[in-house]
């Protein structure tokens, strides 16, 4: 996720949930995903290619995504990733889980400050 090798991922599942959420907006190819996450997070988050493509393949294997073959405007072959119904269900359950985790996290931080 971040460029610092000591912080490759924010927490387990963070990259997956950001990919799923981004693809829920619209189907995208890999590079567009990287750009989208970077742009939406105001450059706070940057997806590393080394993490993105294995994660996409994992999610394809789990049936959360599907890849569509196509041809770009310049006539080059493309792979567009699209969310499946299973992907949407997984995203929704993960969002609930993450919100609970963040709520707990925030409370712990607030208690530490007080």
């Amino acid at each position, binding site marked *: 996720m971040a460029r610092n090798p000591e912080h490759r991922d924010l927490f387990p599942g963070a990259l997956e949930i950001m990919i799923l959420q981004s693809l829920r907006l619209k189907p995208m190819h*890999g590079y567009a995903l990287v750009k989208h996450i970077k742009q939406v997070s105001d450059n706070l988050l940057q997806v*590393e290619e080394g993490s993105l493509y294995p994660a996409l393949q994992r999610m394809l294997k789990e049936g959360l995504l599907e890849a569509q073959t196509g041809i770009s405007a310049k006539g080059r072959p493309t792979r567009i990733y699209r969310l499946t119904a299973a992907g949407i269900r997984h995203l929704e359950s993960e969002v609930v889980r993450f919100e609970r985790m963040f709520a707990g996290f925030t409370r712990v931080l607030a208690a530490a400050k007080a």
Partner: protein
Amino acid sequence: VSRFSRFFFKNRRCDDISVSIQEHIDKRIDELMKEGASREEAERTARRDFGNVTLLRERSREVWQWQRLESLLVDLKHVCRRLWRSPGFTITVVLTLAIGIGANTAVFSVLNSVLIRPLSYPEPQQLVAMRLNAPARQGWPTSGMNYAYRPRCISPSPRITVASNRWVCGCLGLQASRESHNRSRSTQR
């Protein structure tokens, strides 16, 4: 899913990964060129930013593989290639293994037939070995073991009764061989 279609799907996945990676690099090159970089410079920067393409392709493919089995197969292939390239070593190893396995098999076969498996005679548990118990005849050859079936040793027959004074029965479970010789000795006494 048949083996063929699995193989086909696997190849298609590998193509997908390669296409995605190439697409990523191409888009980055286009973007850098739009920003004013030359084609060469853009390609160099895009590839440098992307990192190790081969490694990333491998890591992406691994998701679809039966990792342990496939790495085992790769190791086996590597071993076969190395062995093929050094025939002297291969022949030495194969001969060593063959001789080792052969010797083990031979020793086990002997032990199995002598110690483990019952003898191929009827009622082998009744076989006994006889040996001489005569202090006055110490000089006599003792290598001539005499064997008989136990019922004969304890037989009420006078000839064998005489023999049992001179010959002590011991269970060895070996072949009865010099029975007739025993009989002739016992009758001489």
